[in-house]
């Protein structure tokens, strides 16, 4: 059994595929957000800002990548991952607020323990908000970060 390194050309293809998948996730998310009219208040604009930041990060890595540009892209991606986590929380919070509106729990919601309420909100047993939907932003960000791992522009530094 031999161990060898992956040829640089194949690594380059893998990087481009990761970036392409990130771009696809971003495009799909943009359409989904537009269909949901996800722009009523400031909090709902956060994923749009995140998509903008991801677009910048993607461009930094895909076009003339250099150590500094890749470092900036990674920082931007970490910010988007944080925004994604906030999105997951906000969706759970929305579902939590909707708990008393659900006829199955309208009489019992107030008497339920806080843990029980939040569990039902997090598992979407109550409320209409898709809990993990904003996770796609983190996925795209991780894809961009993955495309920079062991990047020649960084190794040359």
């Amino acid at each position, binding site marked *: 059994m031999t161990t060898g390194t992956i040829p640089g050309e194949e690594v380059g293809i893998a990087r481009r595929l990761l970036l392409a998948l990130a771009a696809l996730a971003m495009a799909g998310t943009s359409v989904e957000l537009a269909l949901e009219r996800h722009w009523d208040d400031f909090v709902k604009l956060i994923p749009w800002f995140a998509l903008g930041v991801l677009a910048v990060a993607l461009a930094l890595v895909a076009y003339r990548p250099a150590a500094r540009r890749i470092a900036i892209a990674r920082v931007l991606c970490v910010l988007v991952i944080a925004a994604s986590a906030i999105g997951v929380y906000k969706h759970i919070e929305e579902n939590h*607020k909707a708990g008393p509106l659900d006829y199955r729990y309208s009489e019992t919601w107030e008497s339920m323990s806080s843990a029980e309420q939040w569990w039902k909100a997090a598992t979407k047993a109550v409320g*209409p908000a898709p809990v993990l939907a904003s996770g796609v932003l983190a996925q795209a960000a991780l894809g961009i970060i993955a495309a920079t791992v062991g990047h020649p522009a960084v190794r040359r530094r």
Partner: protein
Amino acid sequence: MKPLALAALAGALLLSACSDTSRSDSGAATTAPTSAGSATSGATSAASAAATATKPAASATAAATAAATQATTKVSANNATRAQLQAAFEAAGIPNASQWAREVEEYRPYSTTDTNMTKLRGELAKYNPAAGVVDKIVATLSLP
């Protein structure tokens, strides 16, 4: 027997007086007894007393009518403030009025051609509300 009859007559007169006062307050037509000492007057007074007894039921009906009138007081689905929406929903007896007001505000704007508010109905249905709640909310709203 005579003192008993006098006491009965006095009671009837008293009831008649009370009835007359309350009916005057409510603005209804009144028929004052013309001869306190006559048997006819006593009978009229007894009828007045009976009318007084039915007053709570009449008041309840009036209150229900007032509530229904309030429930049909509509506010603009597109332009009312959240406080106005909440007040209208509370008047209509919709539970969790503040949260429903928030949701109605969130899904704006509503098309003026969507007279049945299909869009809003669809959005609110996602919250799994009790039967009739969405109908009550829509009944409280007007377009634009």
